[in-house]
């Protein structure tokens, strides 16, 4: 009886011990003050805007005006009522919007299920709510969504900074000392609200990219606007001007997006077959989807034809051909994969899984945005510097994707499971050709831009990129030559991007 009681006590105690299941659903960071407000940020070179004042906003009321005084009273009341978001938006809301974008990518990164007759349906942007839902946020799709959002945010910050230092309206708490803001942005002028600019741009771009999320994104941006007032950072007129500026800038980017070639990237089967045939007659090989039932078209065959951000001529980046499947070089690469799968170590398995970023996740572009977010927090960047990191990194990632897809469908190289008999893998093989590795290209591009932005992190990000690249070999879904070519290709793309960044006036 005594033993039984002891066991019972252990059992009950153990149950309570292991009840802590409060798992993080977002980044956690301490709010910080922007030491350097980058007062010249309004003179930096935008991505698409012809000039920082291309989108006009009205001159703000003077801080001594009755209207502004009423706004200050409203701020105090809002502070008393409390932040409706409970501190969620923090001192740098761009971080949250990046996180929201990653979340939507993960939510929509699902491949269509086959119909009962063995055919496959395709997402239709004209009917996003009919299964399969639009979009299928695969890595190229996500890379593009993040690039548009981030580049627009950066232009939005340049425009906001231009007006901030043109009108020089001090933060509310500097005018009325009774206001105690949750986040102290030092001497940064408050008109227009940079948070509202970021919110409006993010909402507009993401609503276009994820049309089924319009209501959710609206509620998020409305919450942010309320939160900016309730945390004592902005007056209502700061918010209204920021919101309108952000919408204007988003329009310019969405106009580019509507004609960048994405709507034609997912080709019909006939076009897809002719791309494969072209490769076969040129090289003597062609990639084939190995799923059952077979998917008729790979992911985004014409994505390589998309308008690039910083690559003047995509063919200059295209790598040399991969080895012929009859060659000794190929045999060596194939043997390596078989050897690895037969003797897979725990460490290799973990690396393969750690970087897999496959279906249902935020994809490799999302993974690198997470790293960028961590660095932005670590180095306490202000909103315009944060936007610059995301913008150049995501333009480079997007261009890397375009360049990689150009090579993938130009060479149309088969995957290991197609060329190696009876080959089994621990990762699912993606639905597009092998050469070059997307993970490697995305990662090398992202790592190079992060190195430019955070030089002290070079070793860390280079190691990550190499590991992300190797992970595909361990997973059994890429040959080593796919990965090595991808790393070089990504680096070349990033260099073109960095060439633009060094000229933008921020350094």
């Amino acid at each position: 009886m005594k033993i039984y009681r002891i066991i019972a006590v252990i059992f009950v105690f153990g149950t309570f011990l292991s009840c802590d299941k409060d798992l993080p659903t977002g980044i956690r960071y301490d709010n910080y003050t922007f030491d350097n407000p980058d007062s010249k940020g309004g003179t930096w070179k935008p991505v698409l805007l012809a000039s920082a004042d291309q989108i006009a906003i009205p001159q703000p009321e003077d801080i001594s005006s009755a209207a502004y005084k009423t706004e200050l009273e409203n701020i105090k009341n809002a502070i008393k009522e409390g932040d409706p978001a409970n501190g969620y938006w923090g001192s740098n809301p761009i971080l949250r919007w990046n996180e929201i974008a990653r979340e939507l990518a993960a939510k929509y990164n699902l491949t269509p299920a086959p119909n009962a007759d063995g055919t496959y349906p395709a997402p239709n942007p004209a009917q996003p709510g009919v299964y399969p839902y639009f979009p299928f946020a695969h890595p190229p799709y996500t890379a593009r969504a993040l690039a548009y959002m981030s580049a627009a945010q950066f232009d939005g910050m340049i425009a906001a900074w231009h007006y901030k230092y043109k009108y020089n309206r001090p933060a509310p708490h500097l005018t009325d000392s009774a206001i105690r803001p949750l986040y102290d942005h030092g001497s940064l002028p408050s008109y227009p609200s940079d948070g509202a600019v970021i919110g409006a741009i993010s909402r507009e771009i993401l609503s276009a990219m994820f049309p089924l999320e319009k209501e959710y994104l609206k509620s998020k941006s409305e919450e942010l606007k309320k939160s900016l007032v309730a945390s004592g950072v902005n007056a209502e007129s700061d918010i209204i001007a920021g919101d309108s500026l952000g919408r204007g800038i988003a329009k310019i980017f969405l106009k580019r997006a509507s004609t960048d070639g994405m709507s034609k990237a997912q080709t019909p089967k006939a076009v897809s077959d002719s791309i494969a045939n072209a490769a076969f007659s040129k090289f003597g090989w062609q990639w084939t989807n190995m799923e059952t039932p077979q998917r008729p078209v790979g992911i985004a065959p014409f994505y390589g034809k998309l308008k690039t951000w910083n690559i003047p001529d995509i063919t200059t980046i295209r790598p040399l051909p991969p080895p012929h499947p009859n060659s000794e070089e190929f045999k060596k690469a194939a043997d390596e994969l078989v050897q690895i799968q037969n003797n897979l170590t725990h460490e290799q398995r973990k690396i393969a899984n750690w970087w897999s970023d496959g279906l249902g996740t935020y994809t490799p572009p999302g993974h690198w945005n997470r790293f960028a977010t961590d660095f932005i927090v670590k180095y306490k960047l202000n909103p315009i510097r944060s936007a610059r990191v995301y913008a150049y990194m995501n333009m480079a990632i997007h261009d890397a994707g375009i360049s990689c897809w150009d090579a993938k469908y130009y060479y149309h190289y088969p995957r290991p499971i197609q060329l190696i008999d009876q080959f089994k893998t621990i990762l699912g093989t993606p639905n597009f050709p092998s050469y070059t590795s997307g993970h490697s290209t995305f990662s090398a591009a992202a790592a190079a831009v992060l190195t430019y932005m955070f030089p002290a992190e070079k070793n860390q990000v280079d190691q990550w990129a190499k590991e992300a690249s190797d992970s595909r070999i361990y997973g059994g879904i890429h040959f080593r030559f796919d990965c090595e070519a991808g790393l070089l290709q990504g680096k070349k793309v990033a260099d073109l991007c960095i060439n633009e960044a060094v000229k933008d006036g921020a350094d």
Partner: protein
Amino acid sequence: MNISSIMHCRRTIATGCALVCLLASGVYAQTPADALLMKGKEICIAPFYTHDTWNKYWEGSLLRENQNIGQLTRNTYSLMLGYGITDRLNAFVNLPYIRTSASGGQMKGAKGIQDLSLALKYSFLLRESMGFQWNILGTVGYSVPVSSYLSDYMPFSLGLGTSEYSGRMILEARHKTNIYFRGTTGYMHRTTTRAERDYYYADKGYYTDIMDVPDALSIDAALGAFLFDHRLQLECYYLHQNSLSGDDIRRQNAPQPTNRMNFQSASLYARVYPELIKGWSIFANYGQVINGRNVGRSTMVTAGMTYQFFTKKQTL
């Protein structure tokens, strides 16, 4: 020791095996905990094998095929030991080796030792009334992964990769005609499992490699009989187990340990005590998952044997 108590013991071992199996990985269970106890100082050894296959699974509530899996096979080789600490308190240990594979697609299967399970069973009450022998028992169990298998590799993974604390209450009523009814309710508290990635989506994004594995509640009922002077036991068994939280497998996505895994299964169990060999029995079980959510529609066949003996200390 009389023949009846030997039989009780033997039967306890086999169903004890199944019990531990159930504790370790509820979804792969076949037969229930029973209501019988070994005598003090009695030892039981039971090797058994389970062949579990499915070619359809429930993606959320949608029953579907997946030709990239084809038929999934899970072979489990278990060794269980039981020990009578006292006449009223028994202990069980079980350790399974599992191998999984798919007939379709190009994904590698998995193999290895799964979870070590420990269970204690205690009899609270044993009473005769109204022509029945009533028995109320409680069990507590604990299981823990003993190899570095990856739980986040479903449906190939060996198990859920979590520690599990479980408790069960068992009520058995046995008529003097040797027909019996048994009902059990159990609660399984699972802790968490560690994925090899630090972001996953389960209704929302999680920035951690720790996955919450839902707790589960089970109810089961058995109707059985001892026939031919206790040489044959037959039993029909129904099990209903539900997770108390968790997400659904998303359309055309892989399952993961955070899923809400519900199922109902029906089984037939037979056990024979060959007269020729003293202390031995053989048993077989056929089970079918008849409804579920985020689980395979498994057909399970188990076969095993038990050997039971007293330690030297106690002789009869």
